[in-house]
């Protein structure tokens, strides 16, 4: 099957208070890709995600997701925000967080039986169903992350965007989480932001370096080693079967 483009970005620019965050960015993501967005803090990764979601409007350029502008495709995207520790001490149970993913999936503001079923299915998928009635505050960071992934899955998305899902996790939980994402990737396209600059190449199919502009590297480039490439990204790369190395900074 010919892969078809899911995300098409061309000539995208965005500035915040007069400072250019993204400049003339173009790239394409195809279906069933597992793309890692890496880059330094303030390099524009989160901004790029918010532009893709339609939460921010670009200054210029064009974004197409499923061949539509972001405002019309948002309902097909499952979004896992960066800070899952928002609203500490908020009284809400795990199942109620996941049920948020079912809002407006049908007419009216109410939650129906089918919504509850879908939410529970999503919780089973991330192996958190046993915690459904627990208060979200009582969970560990890794467990919370899974619940937020379940919330995104409950929207029945075709594309999953995750903003730094592993930032607050220990190494064992990180591995578990990537394994879970790999499983989800069998049916859905995934975009994951990571500022750890650590890429587990067994999981991702492509890497994009975001630092005002976007350099896109597909699977072949990662495995052959980015050292030999025309524009290596300033990252610490841990790739499967390749010794740990630190890539030199790219001169623009």
């Amino acid at each position, binding site marked *: 099957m010919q892969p078809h483009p899911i995300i098409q970005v061309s000539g995208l620019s965005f500035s915040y208070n007069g400072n250019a965050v993204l400049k003339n960015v173009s790239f394409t993501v195809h279906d069933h890709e597992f793309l890692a967005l890496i880059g330094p803090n303030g390099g524009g990764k989160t901004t790029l995600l918010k532009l893709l979601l339609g939460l921010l409007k670009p200054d210029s350029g064009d974004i197409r997701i499923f061949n539509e502008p972001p405002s019309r495709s*948002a309902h097909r995207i499952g*979004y896992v925000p960066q800070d899952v520790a928002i609203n500490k001490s908020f009284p809400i149970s795990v199942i109620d967080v996941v049920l948020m993913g079912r*809002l407006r999936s049908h007419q009216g503001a109410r939650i129906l039986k089918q919504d509850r079923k879908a939410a529970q299915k999503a919780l089973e998928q991330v192996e958190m169903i046993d915690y459904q009635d627990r208060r979200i505050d009582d969970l560990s960071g890794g467990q919370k992350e899974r619940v937020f992934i379940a919330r995104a899955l409950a929207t029945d998305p075709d594309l999953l965007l995750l903003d730094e899902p592993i930032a607050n996790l220990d190494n064992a939980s990180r591995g578990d989480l990537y394994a879970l994402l790999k499983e989800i990737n069998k049916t859905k396209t995934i975009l994951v932001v990571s500022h750890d600059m650590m890429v587990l190449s067994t999981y991702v199919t492509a890497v994009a370096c975001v630092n005002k502009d976007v350099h896109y590297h597909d699977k072949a480039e990662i495995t052959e080693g980015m050292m030999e490439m025309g524009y290596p990204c300033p990252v610490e790369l841990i790739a499967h079967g390749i010794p740990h190395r630190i890539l030199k900074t790219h001169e623009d």
Partner: protein
Amino acid sequence: MIDALQYEFMRNALMAGLLASVICGIIGTFVVVNRLVFLAGGVAHAAYGGIGIAFFFGIPYILGTIGFSVLAAMAMTAVVLKAKSRADTFIGVIWAFGMALGIILMDMTPGYNVDLMSYLFGSILAVPGSDLVWMAVLTVVSLFFTAYFYRDLLAISYDDEFARLRGVPVNLLYFLFISLIAVAIVLIIRVVGLILVIALLTIPPYIAEKYSRSLIMMMVLSIILSLLFNFLGLWLAYAYDLTSGATIIMVAVAGFLISTGANYLSLNRKSFKFQ
């Protein structure tokens, strides 16, 4: 207390306490979890400008106050939605403006001088039956609004960005909800006073939050606590001949201290166990 119930003013006071508890329990829960306490305080104070307008122009009290408060609340909401980081300053300005406007208009209204104290502390022991009807209507409206939009309000309170992505009309609901807060504050101020409104909107939900697993549970607990504070306060005020509003607040603050102290002790024990 039982013998006090033979007086109509006492029965009305208890009824007012009951209705105020239900409204404050529901609305206060959202105010506390959305960190809107300062905005609620701003609306409550700005309402005084509405009272001034109502007296100066000779329009009905309820109309003038609600109109002005809802407008003030809309302005505050617009700033909260547009520039959250600057919202507190802006709210502070409207807060001060409303009170100053009220006082100046009162000065300029010939022959009439509204007692600022009764605005601050209300007069729960002198509630007319017509006010109770208004409050009952508002209670029903709040219950229906919250019941229908519960999931949306929950999502907006917890993660408004996600709610927006799901297509929930976040801004519209925010404006609607804050109007409801404004109307509630105006009606309840008339009954129990400005200071007690803020106490009832914040203290019971704050205590309830720690023991609740859902917003509904938090609302129910807040209502129960609020009733407890109101009735205990009224009884103490009656028994010892104290100002009712202030006594209710003192009881609520005592509850707040007991809850916070108990929480502190149990937290200490927990961390000790883990050492």
